[in-house]
């Protein structure tokens, strides 16, 4: 039992905390809306090698694991940084597993943005989380992992979460990366990494939402005292802090279990996603609420967090359905109530 980060991991955390504090301040976050992508910040990310942190060294990466990526995602979440982290980082690890060396090196050096199609169903039917900016999305089609090139005339979807969402109707140019037994297993592993990295980003988002709320509650006065004096204001912030620390531990445990290849790893990834989703929303909602009417104005930073606390979850999965994935993975599939298989919910049953 050791719950401490190593010196190297602390270094990764500090490095990206500094980067995002400087390059993803609220003005930059607002400027990137509604498409949700800051090319300058993305270039910084590429230059630091962030995307390749989780890629083996012999494949041109940093040789780290999912935990190192989770630390980066958490720091990005803290600043609601307008760059994609979860899907491109998981895609890079998947490309390395598939041996797709050209696509991987293009992704790592920034030549092409490579993301994942994480929703159930064919690529053409999905709102792709990074569809507005990606050059390639990697998808599972049947028993094949395929790379799909961006079609012409993609129209980015203006959205509340500052995400580069888009549909790719008419995407046809497909390269098969893996065909066979490994395809589902590897893609499922990549989906688990997305769950974990989305959870980590939501942990960071929750932490800053709590901090914004606490800072306001310390200085704003009502009825002659700072509003943080009132327990109805303070106590939900305390609950949020406890839940945020719990979500971080759960996310880290999922990273560790994935790295150790433990049978419970997939269930933990789903659990981390659900718990972080609920935690981030509750933190952002209460923090916005205690700002009173100001929290509702666009000038107030907390509204940036409130919208993303929901949109970052919805982009990946309905947490209620994700509970079914937790159950399938922890207890095996129900023998009497089978659901239609979802690409991101199978086959990680144990």
């Amino acid at each position, binding site marked *: 039992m050791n*719950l401490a980060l190593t010196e190297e991991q602390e270094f990764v955390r500090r490095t990206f905390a500094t980067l995002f504090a400087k390059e993803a301040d609220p003005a930059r976050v607002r400027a990137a809306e509604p498409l949700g992508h800051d090319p300058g910040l993305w270039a910084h990310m590429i230059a630091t090698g962030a995307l390749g942190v989780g890629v083996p060294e012999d494949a041109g990466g940093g040789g780290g694991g999912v935990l190192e990526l989770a630390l980066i995602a958490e720091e990005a979440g803290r600043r609601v940084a307008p760059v994609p982290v979860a899907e491109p980082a998981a895609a890079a690890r998947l490309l390395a597993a598939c041996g797709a060396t050209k696509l991987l090196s293009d992704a790592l050096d920034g030549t092409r943005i490579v993301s994942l199609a994480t929703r159930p169903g064919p690529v053409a039917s999905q709102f792709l989380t990074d569809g507005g900016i990606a050059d390639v999305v990697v998808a599972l089609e049947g028993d094949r992992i395929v790379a799909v090139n961006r079609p012409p005339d993609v129209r980015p979807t203006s959205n509340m979460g500052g995400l580069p969402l888009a549909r790719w109707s008419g995407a046809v140019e497909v390269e098969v990366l893996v065909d066979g037994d490994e395809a589902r297993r590897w893609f499922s592993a990549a989906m688990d990494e997305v769950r974990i990295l989305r959870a980590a980003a939501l942990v960071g988002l929750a932490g800053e939402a709590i901090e914004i709320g606490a800072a306001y509650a310390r200085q704003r006065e009502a009825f002659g005292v700072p509003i943080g*004096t*009132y327990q109805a204001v303070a106590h939900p912030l*305390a609950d949020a*802090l*406890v*839940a945020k620390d719990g979500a971080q531990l759960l996310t880290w445990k999922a990273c560790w279990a994935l790295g150790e290849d433990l049978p419970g790893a997939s269930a933990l990834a789903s659990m981390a996603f659900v718990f972080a989703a609920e935690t981030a929303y509750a933190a952002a909602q209460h923090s916005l609420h205690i700002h009173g009417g100001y929290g509702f104005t666009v000038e107030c930073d907390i509204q940036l967090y409130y919208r993303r606390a929901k949109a970052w979850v919805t982009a990946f999965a309905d947490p*209620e359905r994700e509970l079914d994935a937790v159950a399938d993975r922890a207890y095996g599939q*129900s023998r*009497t109530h089978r659901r239609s298989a979802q690409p991101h919910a199978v086959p990680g049953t144990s």
Partner: protein
Amino acid sequence: MDFHEPSHLKGIRAEAEAFAAEHVTAEMVEEELRTGDGVSRSLLRAMGAKGWVASMWPPEEGGAGLDPFETAAMLGAIRAVGGPTVGPGTTMLSANAIRALGSPALRARILPGVAAGETLICLGYTEPEGGSDVFACKTRSVRDGDEWVINGQKMFTTFAHRADYCFLLTRSDPESRGPHGLTMFLVPMGTPGIEIQAVRTMGYERTNIVFYNDVRVSDDLRVGEPEQGLHVMRAALEAEQNVAPSSRTSQLYEAAVAWARQTPDPDGATMLDDPSVRRRLARMAIDAEVADLLGYRVAFLEQLGAKPGPHAALFGPETYVRWSKEVMDMVGPAGTADWTDPDAVLGGTFEYHFRCSVASTIYGGSSEVLRSLIAEQLLGLPRSRPKS
């Protein structure tokens, strides 16, 4: 980062399981359910013989030199089969304070008996009008030569009727208010003037109200300096967080999964195949995992000498209450049968949890007190309670 249970726990857990199999008898478990005393003298002595009462003290002081993880594993194994551990657990709160701040003579007189499992110490903090505000203490102590004379009453003194001493909070400065002017004593429970009345609880526990009428206590039994009771209580309160085995939320979760696996559903499968049961259990699994992780973090940080916040003490009981209620809904009327009924599900465990859980967000620091601590100490928010 490593979430593996420390490997050395296997040994102590196996040892505690074998110990529990030998010493925690069916009669003992039933007597505990019937009386709710939280105490078995024979179990206490057997634990003392192994150094497991003062388990974290060094062997030369009668302990076993266990670390917080080992202690949690050892106590967890004994509790898992229904062995009563409230007595030794509570005794150690005051024993740790006496060890830290008692006079050499008092330490020599009391602590060997505690470690040996011969001496039980109950806690006399809360008063009928005090509750969470422990410093609203009205019980008076007045010095009279080499003795003190104590008058007052204490509420919720669990196992007072089985204890050898009470670790008693008194007010010795009549002009003082709040946390000042308090003095701690170790009062022998056989002293004339002490009257104990049983208070039965909904959760199968017996507690007591204790009256102190002109109770005379030797100055030798004072703990810490006069009017420095706050200092002594802090030493004991800090130890209260120490007891962090697996959360009760996760124990309840394990029982709920066992129920779902073994209970047929109308479709001929089991309740574990039912969609609403599955989602409930999945949600519960998440809260149980988080409650356990926060508890592990307490043990981990204590081992490093760092101070963990009261996260686990808040999240564990809050989720325990929530899930004890959800499980009732899920299991249905069979779950409401109590342990005395032969038809009770899993020995009446869900009925037991439902009854007990609701007190867990009250004792050991109510959820409101813990949230205020977090708000003030970790979020820098202003104090919500009036200063005394």
